[in-house]
């Protein structure tokens, strides 16, 4: 689904990604772990098209398209989704209006009819159920005054509503209590399918108990230095990151 080759990216002149390689196929769940500052969030933001980052080298092929050539909104319309680490507040626009606009923009791009009010409401009902979400969050302004947990849950709600192909979760587990973590994971698991892929960025193994990855990668200093199965996450949890670093494993592509 997505193939990242020798990706280099800088922010304000500092190189954060230093030749990252990664390939993710449909139906797979990948987890990226790594110490603070290793470039995990940068990778997610670069793939989503954040303007603050400059790609200086490398390429990303997404569904046979040059991803880096696409505007951020077109990446989203092509089915790439980022659940933000820090969801942004937008006062004055209700969550419902925002979602309706987004859903219909994406449908339009795919050449599909816009949803009727009834269809949209039915979709909302179905998805809020999965996340056990309070309907009042829909009439409130986007993320405005939401608690940390509500914001994260709202991200996953958007994931389910927009139904992308490739979902990136940027530390979605941070700030969640165990009940919320279970609900959010349940939401993500209900999204998983043969034709979908998920990239989970996290610090902690805990989330991976609920969203079980097929592959785990360790990102350090802008490169993937080790890849493995889900047991790698457990190993990291036990030993920390230091034991890998000396290995200086060659850039690894899955």
């Amino acid at each position, binding site marked *: 689904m997505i193939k990242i080759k020798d990706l280099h990216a800088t922010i304000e002149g500092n190189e954060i990604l230093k030749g990252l390689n990664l390939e993710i196929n449909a139906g797979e769940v990948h987890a990226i772990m790594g110490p603070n500052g290793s470039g995990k969030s940068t990778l997610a933001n670069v793939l989503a098209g954040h303007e*603050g980052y400059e790609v200086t080298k490398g390429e990303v092929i997404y569904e046979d398209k040059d991803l880096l050539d696409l505007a951020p909104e077109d*990446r989203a*319309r092509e089915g790439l*989704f*980022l659940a933000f680490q820090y969801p*942004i507040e937008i006062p*004055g*626009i209700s969550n419902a209006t925002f979602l309706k606009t*987004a859903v219909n923009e994406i449908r339009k791009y795919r050449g599909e009819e816009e949803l009727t009010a009834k269809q949209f409401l039915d979709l909302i009902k179905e998805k809020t159920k999965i996340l056990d979400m309070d309907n009042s969050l829909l009439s409130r302004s986007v993320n405005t005054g939401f608690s940390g947990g509500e914001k994260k849950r709202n991200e996953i709600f*958007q994931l389910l509503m927009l139904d992308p192909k490739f979902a990136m979760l940027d530390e979605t587990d941070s700030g969640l209590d165990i009940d919320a973590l279970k609900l959010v994971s349940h939401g993500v698991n209900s999204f998983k399918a043969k034709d979908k892929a998920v990239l989970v960025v996290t610090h902690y193994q805990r989330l991976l108990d609920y969203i079980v990855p097929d592959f785990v990668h360790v990102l350090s200093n802008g490169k993937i230095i080790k890849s493995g199965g889900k047991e790698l996450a457990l190993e990291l949890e036990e030993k920390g990151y230091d034991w890998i670093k000396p290995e200086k494993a060659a850039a690894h592509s899955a």
Partner: protein
Amino acid sequence: MSEEELSEDMKVVEDVTQSEYKWGFVTDIEADEAPKGLNEEIVRFISAKKGEPEWMLEWRLKAYRYWLKMEEPKWAKVGYPKIDFQDIRYYSAPKQKPELESLDEVDPELIKTFEKLGIPIEEQKRLSGVAVDAVFDSVSVATTFKKTLEDKGIIFSSVSEAVKNHPELVKKYLGSVVPYTDNYYAALNAAVFSDGSFVFIPKGVRCPMELSTYFRINAQDTGQFERTLIIAEDSSYVSYLEGCTAPMRDNNQLHAAVVELITLDNAEIKYSTVQNWYPGDKDGKGGIYNFVTKRGVCRGVNSKISWTQVETGSAITWKYPSCVLQGDNSVGEFYSVAVTNNFQQADTGTKMIHLGKNTKSTIISKGISAGRSDNSYRGLVKVGKKAEGSRNFSQCDSMLMGDQCGAHTFPYIEVDNKSAMVEHEATTSKVGEDQIFYLNQRGISTEDAINLIVNGFCKEVFNELPMEFAVEAQKLLAISLEGSVG
């Protein structure tokens, strides 16, 4: 000495005026436009062109003489080169036959212009049921739906016609809300006003349609001095729409309109404006100076005046639609969106003057600044000694786009009655690139993202606009803010 040299030499209005007498303009009554400059001759010329009675001319002259003694106000937070009032043409009429019965008689060129502006009068007649009094430059050219209105006893005409046909009403009400002594531009307007709309809703009549005047500034260097007077008698209601647009142009243009509203017992006037005059180019060159005095008096008990405005145009806006709440239990409302971009400057707000008992006012002001513009809210809430139990609620929100623009709030509150309650809330927010990226990531284009954010911000005001107007206002906002972020 030529007119040009004259204007160069003169620094102060007084000097110029004295010199003018010396040069003694001779104006041709048959001319379609007045020569540049202002003096008593010009005032007489305008009055004569309109075939006005003596009392009207006298009033104009009194205003003119009063204006001579006044000084241009300087307190607003706007900056612009000194206006040379002698370099302005105060009258220009489109070439046409007078007294038209139907649209067929209107100059087709004129109709074409309206169509270019997206205001096909024929269409509007058919589709929206809006009666249109189209003012093209200084003379009314088409008044539609007159018959329907006449059947109800409603008068909707140009002020010029009203002076001729309903002198008793004009004498009674003109200048009763905004006297020519009120301020510099009100005095100037009284002296040289070209035309405008006159609306009279008789007792107990609810106007069956939105009344609307579209006007635009067209002739080169012609200041537009509109004068609008709306009277709602006991238990009547009218909604009036004012929409403006102007073509691109290079020279700064002065626009000094006066609008007067009067509501008697239990009457209501809703006055909505979408203002989209040429704001100048990206470098701040050109654009219209909009110095407007708008005021309504709730003269009767339980009466209501509601101002809704969406201001996106003009290089400089100086405008404070106000309500004088004289009748007991009367209500004043002000809903405003003011957008400034590039080098635009807006100093706008309202005055709510509570005089009667249990009077209520609401102020919702939304300022959006982008580019290098400056946007100020200036509002006065005044509660008089006798205004027992009065209430005001004010909310002023500012939104900034980019980091080179300015937003300012100047609330003035004067309360002379202890039982009154006055509330003021203000917020400032910034449209961030992060917000836009967030919306982008959900498949929404940057342009739509800005529209969403801005419309969300302005929602409370748009809700007050008549439906079609609200749609137009949203489009205007989008155009005004194009390219201002990201």
